[in-house]
């Protein structure tokens, strides 16, 4: 159900902590901001890595069970040491070549655009993550926090 004031809202769940899967929620949220929408992202489970200080610059592309990885290789090869690093390096080269915004850049845009960034409390308890390990501007909340926000959203996506 959309809100009475007519401002559109998108509510996103970021559940994955790989470089490729960090892009969709951040691009959608920042584009929504450009259209004067409200946007919120709930970072849960591995998605929490996207907003961890120590991790966000080092997100990786998995080489295993990823038939669409930069250079498709059989899983048995993808399991070799160094393959994840290689897949990640190739993706980073593409990102650089295509002049695509980086994950830290997109996070900055989202924070400047007042995207509501919610870290999942349950995941933090589960994985022993402290709030200080997250980047600034993160609100810690639970499923109920997200559901309340999403209940008035026009678009809700789980990524």
């Amino acid at each position, binding site marked *: 159900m959309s809100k009475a004031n*007519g*401002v*559109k809202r998108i509510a996103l769940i970021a559940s994955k902590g790989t470089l490729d899967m960090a892009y969709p929620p951040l*691009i959608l949220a*920042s*584009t929504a*901001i*450009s*259209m*004067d*929408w409200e946007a919120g992202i709930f970072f849960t489970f591995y998605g929490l890595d996207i907003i961890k200080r120590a991790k966000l610059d080092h997100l990786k592309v998995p080489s295993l069970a990823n038939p669409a990885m930069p250079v498709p290789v059989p899983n048995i090869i993808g399991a070799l040491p160094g393959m994840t690093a290689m897949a990640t390096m190739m993706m980073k080269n593409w990102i650089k070549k*295509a*002049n*695509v*915004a980086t994950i830290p850049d*997109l996070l900055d*845009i989202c924070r400047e*655009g007042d995207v509501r960034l919610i870290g999942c409390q349950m995941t933090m308890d589960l994985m022993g993550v402290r709030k200080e390990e997250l980047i600034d501007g993160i609100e810690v909340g639970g499923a109920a926090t997200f559901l309340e926000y999403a209940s008035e959203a026009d678009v809700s996506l789980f990524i």
Partner: protein
Amino acid sequence: MPSPYPLLGARAALAFMKRGDILRLMLTDLDSVLGVPAWCRMTGNPLLGVVERAGVHCVLVQKGGPSRRSLRGGPASNDLFRHGSLTGHP
């Protein structure tokens, strides 16, 4: 400049403009160009035209109603895209 910067920049620029003023965007990434008609509809700023030359798309957008307005009932603004040669599509 990669998306989403161009559309964010357009939003920022329009905030300083008056209703009826025309904003010219010079876009080099196709992603943003393709997003312009939808963006114009969603923000209520009519799209006046798009011209491509040497890989740069010149997009003219007129500042519409007050910002932060709902799009319902907003102007259908991508006629040029639908009919025009501007994107190279029929």
